[in-house]
């Protein structure tokens, strides 16, 4: 159930909340808001993925610079709501189990299409790193001959994705589509994104890069799959959906799930894996949206998703607000000073990520920031990292305050079943 407020009723609610600020909202109401926001974010992701599909269809029907650029713009827009859903991932098993299909990264893009010679060949880790399914209608995979004469959503989702059990074999989702729209970024530490020519989709003699018909087929299949995956996830958060049911099964565990999602994304995933590691490796490929050079936005909207889940306020892509009883309200009732601390830290992080975003938009690309010895770039990225690390500390304090620390919220799956982590 999505709550829609007019400006006037939202104002009334604020006044009412302020008047009774010492009363804790019920956990059930907090969970309800959290689930409503999830539903709205996934629905927004779906709506913008459908706009992407329309743009992709136009590109395939009439390949040109204009239709390619329109498809790229639609992809960038589609990332805005999706990145804000990432805060749901680590707290909700149903999201985490599904997420790899739509947002897996990093990828060995040579699996999908042609790559530059400098990319190298098969590696110790992945013998399919340069499979190039677009150029190969038939190939061997784990001792089996695969018929890829038609590139279908089933081929991508069921055979090619995570082929040979290797996570870098990403055949589906946003980043596969990103690669098909931009191509490899060959600019190293210089400004500039991937520069795939529109003629990679031209049919007949104008075709560049070979197999333009199969490339179009791949792009179309991957986009179709993205939509069906987002449709599925949106349904899970509707009234009666499995994600909403799992969340509300046990209220304390549900509130713990909110904090787990916030903390795991802040610390291990975003501050560590996505930001600091890339900086320490000084590798321009170690940026999250490396083909499109959209990494600054990817980080920014991840951070925004964490903040709006805590505040219980999300603004939909059509401007409609979704809000209600929040985790912040729960904390206010127990320890108002800790709520102030949390809000200040979330806002510090957003300021740091905003600085990263505005500087990138002004022309200082994320891959330039990653270059060894680039002091300004390092400071920008570390500003975001430090903000995220610092806010994690306060998230832990909230876990202790709300006495949720008796809930084993981390990694229990691997304890119950040692093999589970390799799925």
């Amino acid at each position, binding site marked *: 159930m999505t709550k829609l407020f007019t400006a006037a009723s939202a104002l009334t609610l604020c006044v009412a909340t302020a008047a009774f600020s010492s009363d804790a909202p019920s956990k059930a109401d907090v969970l309800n808001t959290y689930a409503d926001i999830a539903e709205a974010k996934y629905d927004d992701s779906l709506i913008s993925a459908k706009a992407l599909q329309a743009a992709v269809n136009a590109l395939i029907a009439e390949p040109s610079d204009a239709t390619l650029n329109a498809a790229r713009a639609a992809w960038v827009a589609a990332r805005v709501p999706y990145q804000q859903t990432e805060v749901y991932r*680590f*707290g909700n*098993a149903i999201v*985490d*189990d599904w997420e790899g299909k739509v947002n897996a990264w*990093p990828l060995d893009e040579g699996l999908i299409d042609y790559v530059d010679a400098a990319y190298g060949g098969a*590696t*110790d*880790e992945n013998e399919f790193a340069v499979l190039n399914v677009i150029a190969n209608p038939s190939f061997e995979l784990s001792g089996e001959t695969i018929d890829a004469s038609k590139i279908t959503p089933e081929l991508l989702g069921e055979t090619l994705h995570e082929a*040979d*059990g290797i*996570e*870098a074999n990403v055949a589906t989702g946003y980043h596969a589509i990103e690669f098909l729209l931009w191509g490899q970024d060959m600019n190293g530490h210089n400004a500039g994104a991937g520069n795939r020519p529109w003629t990679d989709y031209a049919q007949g003699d104008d075709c560049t890069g070979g197999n333009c018909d199969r490339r179009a087929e791949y792009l179309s299949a991957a986009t179709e799959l993205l939509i069906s995956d987002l449709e599925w996830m949106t349904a899970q958060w509707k009234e009666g959906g499995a994600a909403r049911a799992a969340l509300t099964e*046990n209220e*304390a*565990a549900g509130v*713990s*799930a909110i904090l*787990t999602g916030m*903390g*795991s*994304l*802040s*610390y*291990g*995933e*975003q501050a*560590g*894996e996505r930001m*600091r*590691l890339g900086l*320490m*490796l*000084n*590798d321009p490929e170690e940026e999250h949206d490396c083909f499109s050079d959209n990494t600054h936005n990817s980080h920014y909207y991840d951070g925004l998703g964490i903040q709006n889940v805590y505040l219980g306020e999300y603004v939909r892509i059509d401007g409609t607000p979704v809000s209600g009883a929040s985790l912040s309200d729960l904390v206010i009732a127990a320890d108002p000073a800790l709520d102030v601390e949390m809000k200040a830290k979330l806002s510090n992080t957003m300021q740091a990520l905003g600085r990263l975003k505005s500087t990138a938009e002004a022309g200082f690309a994320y891959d330039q920031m990653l270059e*060894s*010895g680039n002091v300004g770039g390092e400071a920008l990225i570390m500003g975001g990292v430090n903000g995220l690390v610092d806010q*994690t500390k306060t*998230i*832990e*304090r909230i876990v*202790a305050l709300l006495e949720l*620390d*008796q*809930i*084993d*919220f*981390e*990694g*229990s*799956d*691997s*304890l*119950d079943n*040692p*093999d*589970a*982590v*390799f*799925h």
Partner: protein
Amino acid sequence: MRTLATLVLLSLPVTAHAQDRGPILAEITEAHILPRFANLSESADSLASTAQADCLPGSSDLRAAYGAAFDSWVSASHLRFGPTETGDRAFALAFWPDTKGFTPKTLSRMIADADASVGDAEAFSQVSIAGRGFFALERMLYDPDFADQGQAAYRCALIQAIAADIARNADAINADWQGYAALIMHPGDGSPYRSGDEAMQEHYRALTTGLEFTADTRLGRPLGTFDRPRPNRAEARRSERSLRHVELSLAALKDLALRLSADHPEIASRLSQAFDAAANRAHALDDPTFAGAATPQSRLRIEALQQSINDIRSIVSTELGPTLGISAGFNSLDGD
């Protein structure tokens, strides 16, 4: 690797709040942490001076010094907070797992370009973490692919630069711990830890994260799946140190676990037995690089070792943590 999945609500006894953490915090800091970083600093200095005197990859002195310094790092590597996290020191000491082959790529590029940073410690400290630390040095000392790349003189300079950089980081961590020790022993104003509980949580997290890393990464990576074992992913397999790292980490984590459980002899005794069971399985394995992950019979024994570490994790999370009134919080392994 997706680590998080289910949420389990444990039914637990009411925990003792407001416990006096002082004695345990002092004990862990003075007897567990400080000696480990002193050892690391000393053995890393010795590695650097040995490399200065003899930089041949096959040199037995150099390899022995490398082994001793790496041993002290693995025995301290679960203590990832405070001084190890300043300036990427711990990352630069040991970048692994290297899922995209950054270390060989970085080294090959440096050798091919005869990168001048090897002659300048400050410049070398700006090199990618993939080209520094124990895993980069392992490639240079043990990987035949690096035995004849570029000029011998450059390879020598590179080995010396990596060893000196290891020593620089180890010394800096040890020096910073001399001041940080007071901060974690005396939480409150001026300390990053607001309360004794927060300082205890840091040590408890070191224990849980260390166990998780050893079970899921050190053992889990080479095990892969039954259908697709990945023995080539074993940690430090080129120097045949994979199993040794599991044994060293278990010994270090046992020491920490027993200090954390000092006030609860019943739990301490169960932990001690569980650690001994795991150590015995490791000792009996006789498979230094986990090459046996690929054959069903020997694979079973590696899985049994992994299970025995998961048994320890279970005692830690269901008995030790709740009794201490501490949760693990978030760690760097959360996420993918």
